[in-house]
């Protein structure tokens, strides 16, 4: 696949690279910034900032293909000479980014410069001759001899007070003379000989809702992304079996087998509660064929955290959890008044935590004044929005805020209105239920050799995804 992998800074200059095949001239990467500009899909405005230039992620030039992913202003680039599988390369690069992020908390220019040798080591272990070998973060850690350097770690070392609650008594941290056998084992995601004093497993069922709501409160699109996260601190090689409610399993299976045949459709129409689970994906530890044949989710989990199952829920009965009313007044282009009313559109027994409303405003406003009943308001000049934060909102409650913004004298009417195309974003978290109605019936834990008892803990969390957006204005319509 890839002949060479580069990490480049925001101006697309190389920071570090690993050459896998040696068939790419060393200076080829120097022309990459130019190619980015040349291939920009944005025909109208070229910004000075390369990463905002909107260049499609695959460029072919003069016999070489460049595929890249932009992450935090860092380009992760693979160059190749032959007709390679670009899709797989990009997926690999994406995995590379997540591995590096895991190691350094954040992947940016500084963390790269602090950790050259560990990045080399990782690049070396993750791919060989352009063939991806291993992108599992936990297993990679077994191979990597270097310690990563982050500021937090330094502080931890100095204060050395941080103690983990889940202490492993013994992890067969194999003697460095023998290689970790995990990778080449049948179960490549779990090392042997793990031992905990207390054996515990935590299941978090988390559903994040992405929703786009128009100014009249109608839902334009909604998507629920569900994840069952497993945190396991279990000894040995435990075999786990997860039981979910029938409805969820059936719906999931149907979507896999695409049996949205008519009788199912009819049934769900009768119930008027059509929730469809789609696109169920399992962690590699789950025995895929067993799920399809026996409807059983059985697996030997990796140690620590993993996303056991991910799925999407499609529902047409969903109501917006928050209603937003937005009013806007322009006082002859010198002063703006924005009124936002938020209403918690759910039962008053339930409450939402960490609610944050981001209200877009024009750039360059002056001395904003706020009138509000509850929460905290703050103007964020660098991102051009006002943040309205609540610790907690109970069901049925509604709150209003009014912001008065002074505008700089010279402002173009067109620019002024552009800010209203950015939707209002709401983020929140609610505990105790999930919208899809998924229920964990049981989690059986069985370690054949040790036979310990262990109790699983289950939590349900509903929260906003990255895009819980409400359009504030009608597009295009002048005011």
């Amino acid at each position, binding site marked *: 696949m890839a002949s060479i992998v580069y990490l480049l800074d925001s101006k697309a200059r190389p920071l570090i690279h690993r*050459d896998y095949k*040696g*068939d790419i001239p*060393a200076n080829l990467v120097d022309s990459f910034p130019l190619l980015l500009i040349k291939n920009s*899909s*944005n*025909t*109208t405005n070229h910004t000075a900032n390369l990463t905002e230039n*909107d260049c499609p*992620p*695959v460029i072919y030039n003069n016999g070489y293909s460049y*595929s890249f992913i*932009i992450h935090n202003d860092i380009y992760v680039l693979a160059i190749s*000479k*032959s*007709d*390679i599988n*670009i*899709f*797989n390369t*990009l*997926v690999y690069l994406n*995995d590379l980014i997540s591995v590096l992020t895991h190691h350094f908390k954040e992947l940016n220019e500084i963390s790269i410069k602090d950790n*050259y*040798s560990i990045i*080399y*080591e990782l690049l070396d272990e993750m791919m*060989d*001759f352009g*063939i991806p*070998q291993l*992108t599992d973060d936990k297993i990679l850690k077994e191979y990597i*001899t*270097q310690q990563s350097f982050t500021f937090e770690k330094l502080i931890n070392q100095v204060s050395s007070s941080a103690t983990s609650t889940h202490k492993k008594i013994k992890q067969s941290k194999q003697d*460095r*003379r*023998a*290689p970790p*056998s995990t*990778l080449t084992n*049948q179960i490549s*995601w779990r090392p042997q000989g793990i031992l905990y004093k207390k054996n515990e497993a935590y299941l978090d069922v988390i559903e994040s809702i992405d929703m786009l709501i128009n100014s009249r409160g109608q839902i334009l*699109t909604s998507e629920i*992304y569900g994840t069952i996260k497993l945190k396991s601190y279990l000894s040995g090689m435990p075999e786990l079996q997860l039981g979910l409610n029938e409805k969820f399993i059936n719906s999931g299976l149907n979507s*896999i*087998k*695409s049996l949205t045949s008519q009788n199912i459709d009819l049934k769900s129409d009768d119930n008027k509660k059509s929730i469809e689970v789609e*696109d169920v994906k*399992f962690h*590699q530890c789950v025995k*895929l*064929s067993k799920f*399809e044949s026996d409807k059983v989710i059985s697996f030997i989990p990796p140690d620590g955290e993993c996303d056991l199952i991910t799925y*999407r829920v499609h529902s047409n009965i969903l109501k917006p959890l928050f209603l937003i009313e937005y009013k806007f007044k322009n006082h002859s282009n010198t002063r703006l008044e924005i009124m936002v009313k938020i209403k918690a559109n759910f039962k008053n027994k339930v409450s939402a935590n960490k609610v944050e409303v981001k209200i877009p405003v024009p750039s360059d406003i002056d001395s904003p004044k706020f009138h509000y009943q509850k929460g905290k308001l703050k103007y964020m000049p660098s991102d051009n929005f006002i943040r309205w934060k609540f610790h907690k909102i109970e069901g049925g409650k509604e709150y209003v805020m009014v912001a008065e913004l002074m505008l700089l004298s010279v402002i173009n009417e067109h620019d002024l209105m*552009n800010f209203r195309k950015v939707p209002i974003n709401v983020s929140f978290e609610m505990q105790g239920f999930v919208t899809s109605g998924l229920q964990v019936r049981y989690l059986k834990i069985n370690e054949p050799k040790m036979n310990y008892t262990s109790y699983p803990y289950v939590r349900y969390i509903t929260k906003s995804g990255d*895009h819980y*957006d409400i359009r504030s204005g009608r*597009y295009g*319509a*002048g005011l």
Partner: protein
Amino acid sequence: MPKKGENYEFRSGLVSQYADERKDTIQRVIAAMTTGKDVSSLFPDVLKNIATHDLEQKKLVYLYLMNYAKTNPELVILATNTFVRDAEDPNPLIRALAIRTMGCIRVEKMVDYISIPLKRTLKDDNPYVRKTAVICVAKLFELNSTVCLEQGFLDYLLELVDDSNQMVVANSVAALLEISKSTQKDVFTIDYKILNKLLSTLNECSEWGRVSILSVLVEYNADKISEVHEIIEKITPQLQHENPAVVLTSIKVLVKQLDKLPNNEVNNVLGRLSSPLCSLLVSAPEIQFVALKNIRILLEKYPNILDKELRAFFIKYNDPLYLKLEKIEIMTRISNDDNCMLLLSELREYAMEIDIDLVNRSINGIGQIAIKVEKCAKKSVEILYELFINRGDYVVEEIIIVIQNILRRYPKEYLSTIITVVADLKFNDLSKPESLSSYMWILGEYAKEIPHLEEKLILIVENFDDFEPIVQSSALSSIVKISLIKPTPKTPQLLQQILNKATKEIENADVRDKAYLYWRLLSTDDKELQKDILLNKLPILESTIDTFTPGLLEELLPRLGNLSSIFYKPASSFIRFNNDKSFVTSSALQSKKFEELQQIAKNEIVNNAARADNLLDFDDDNVETPEENFTQSETQGNNILDELNDLFSGIGASSTNKTTTTQISGKNNDIFEILGGNTTNSTSPGSL
């Protein structure tokens, strides 16, 4: 003692008696190397540190070596002995490291040295070593295919396809695939037995192992229907894998088998593809982009697989532009009777965005579905009208193009609305040639319905000289048509003017010829014949959505995910397969004997070292004479050579290692003294 600069510091750190300091220095050398500093002069000192049981340190030295493997292969060849020795190390991790690094040194002579350790590691007990060695075979093949074949390495590989360890199997097939791609020959044919092995290994593999195996399965031609069934049965569960690469490669395998299935079963399999395809859209935008490109190819072959999935393709506010455009591309293709209204309202929103490219694409999309789905044509025209009324400057140009297409599909149905748009349109609003040309076409075709036609025509004739040829051509046709359909007092005069201009002032041959043709035709007396020819209606437009030629489609399908799937061109048309082995840095190096190479390397190191130190000394001391300089570098050079010889004669077992380091550090002290002496000597004349 004056400061001696970075390289000097490194060197003393590398030979320090404290292991920690040595390790730390190697780290800093690697950092310096990464930032582009030339630290090749430190080569012998770094290499000394390779004989250690500290895996961390060994890895660091290997990293250093690996980095020079490409730019200075002749340097790395100095370490060959160490590699060979490490390939027998009791620690499998080191064995693997050694064989992996050897494979990265692309000097022909390496072939002689690699064969024996490679053969041994291919049979290693440890699967980690085997899986690394297997890939080294592919490296060797690139370096020298003849030796690789002569020594029977390919047979080793084929044997290892049947290995007990899944990782070794996956890497073997990946290596074989790599080799057959680079030679463009089939070195690996899958028979039924291998097929079974691969299918059963698949479930045990790590994600990338699965990708390797699936990539090979794409190449397999199943001829029995039972095999096809087996493949499909084993591959479909993979669609639920969390890694998108596994998903798309599985789809690729399945699609290849589909043609061999009876029709009723095909739909079963196709149904299972839709939700995995949508799941590809929940990842980084870059990955989504390539996924969408591939979905477009699949849609061309199987137009209905995503019928119910429109929502998955809706644009997100912060999608990059390239992704937004690609999503619209897909949405217009999956539009049908059921989802067209939803899609229209969505496109309407996009058409009110800020970004011009997105707006134009959305308007174009509205036109495409109006033509594709008759049911929503009326609504589409209404939306276009609404957009026109609230128009920004730029929407008009695209709207007029779309309207022309709609008229060609529905010549009468929505005329009243459309005429309002055209009548309201100022000629000056348009600047794009395509838009102007569409505008003229509508004027000519619907002359009877358009109010104030004459004024518009006068403007056209006046500006005729400034138009692009394509616009001139349509202006000509329109005025000729109008003079036949709706002659007004002024039309003969306008016609005369435009024909004059077109035949006398215009240089474009096509426009001129067209004008002459019209003129000739209009000079005949046969009015019926003129009408017959000039007012002939265009055929009804069926679709404005591009399609691939069937040949291209068949070529693209087996190449899903590859470059061709992004550019929609067969690979052969734009990729040059260079068969020259350009990975060898200089061909001159290839012919040299190993001993000569060693000599070259030594000289280079000596020169580098001398150069580096000279520069430093110049910093310290400007009065130094060239003679002194020369002698100094020579003595130093000799010292380094001695050290190098030490290196070859034997960094033996670890027991001797200690003594060598102390020796070396002693030697270095000598150098310090020499240097120190020199500097004092040379500064003294200055002070006198």
